[in-house]
């Protein structure tokens, strides 16, 4: 077991990030599968990588904060309460490096990322008639992300 662990700790951070790319094409997963997948990714990351390195890695930092934020705010209607959550504010504090991570997450699963994206980028590609329509708002930001080169 020690041998396995010592080998696995050499796994490149990019390999962990690749797990996220797998998610992007899994568009028809159940809620339970998604939860299990998220927990699996977190447990793998915790096992493989020392916490100090995890936190310095933007993808792992983003994923950890995202899970904390989602769990704590899922029942809320107040966008203000959702956006002032400490984990969400830490994601905003990551700055431009968080933009592709947020957009990839939005591509996988729509969420209340609009406040964060507007705060980080200073832009808002959502048309006034689209306000509150999550699917259309998400599509507008994904389109923006492609135009800006953040998404393929």
């Amino acid at each position, binding site marked *: 077991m020690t041998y396995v662990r010592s080998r696995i700790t050499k796994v490149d951070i990019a390999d962990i990030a690749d797990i996220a790319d797998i998610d992007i094409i899994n568009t028809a997963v159940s*809620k339970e599968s998604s939860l299990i997948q998220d927990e699996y990714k977190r447990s793998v990351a915790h096992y493989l990588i020392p916490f100090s390195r995890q936190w310095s890695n933007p993808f792992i930092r983003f994923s950890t904060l995202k899970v904390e934020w989602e769990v704590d705010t*899922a029942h809320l209607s*107040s966008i203000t309460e959702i956006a002032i959550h400490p984990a969400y504010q830490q994601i905003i504090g990551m700055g431009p490096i968080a933009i592709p991570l947020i957009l990839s997450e939005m591509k996988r699963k729509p969420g209340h990322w*609009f406040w964060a994206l507007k705060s980080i980028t200073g832009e808002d590609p959502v048309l006034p008639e689209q306000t509150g329509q999550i699917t259309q708002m998400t599509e507008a930001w994904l389109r923006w992300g492609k135009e800006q080169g953040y998404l393929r």
Partner: protein
Amino acid sequence: MASLGQGTRVFKVSEETIEHLFPNLRKDSYFIASPETIDYNCIAWAAGNSEKWWWPDPQNQYFWPPGIPREETIEAFVKAYELLGYSICQNPEYENGFEKIAIYVDSIGRPTHVARQLSSARWTSKLGKLEDIEHTLDGLAGSKYGYVAVIMKRSK
């Protein structure tokens, strides 16, 4: 314990989550009425809309009825529902010919949640981006949504 029919397995995770968030639901019967979706929230659902997320956010990113102050105050929420024909009343009991809503507020009076009464006299709520449930008013009272501060009604 939620009374669940078809789709019990689908809602199992949600049931545990919901009862953890709203322990008062365990005292009364409630059930999950639809799968979770982020397309709309409780404010919209109470207004009869299942296509938009309503909130008076300062960034103007979410829907709020035009002409109503974008403020997280009970006054602004009352005005929003007055636009839909509701007026304040005192009694949450079911009245034939009327549809009622209940506005919950937190400890400092900020609106947190809105529930709508059904013809069964029970209440329907969308829990953030989680599921719709049918419940009693007390079932959602507590540390998360606070308490019911205003009841409004309109003719059906």
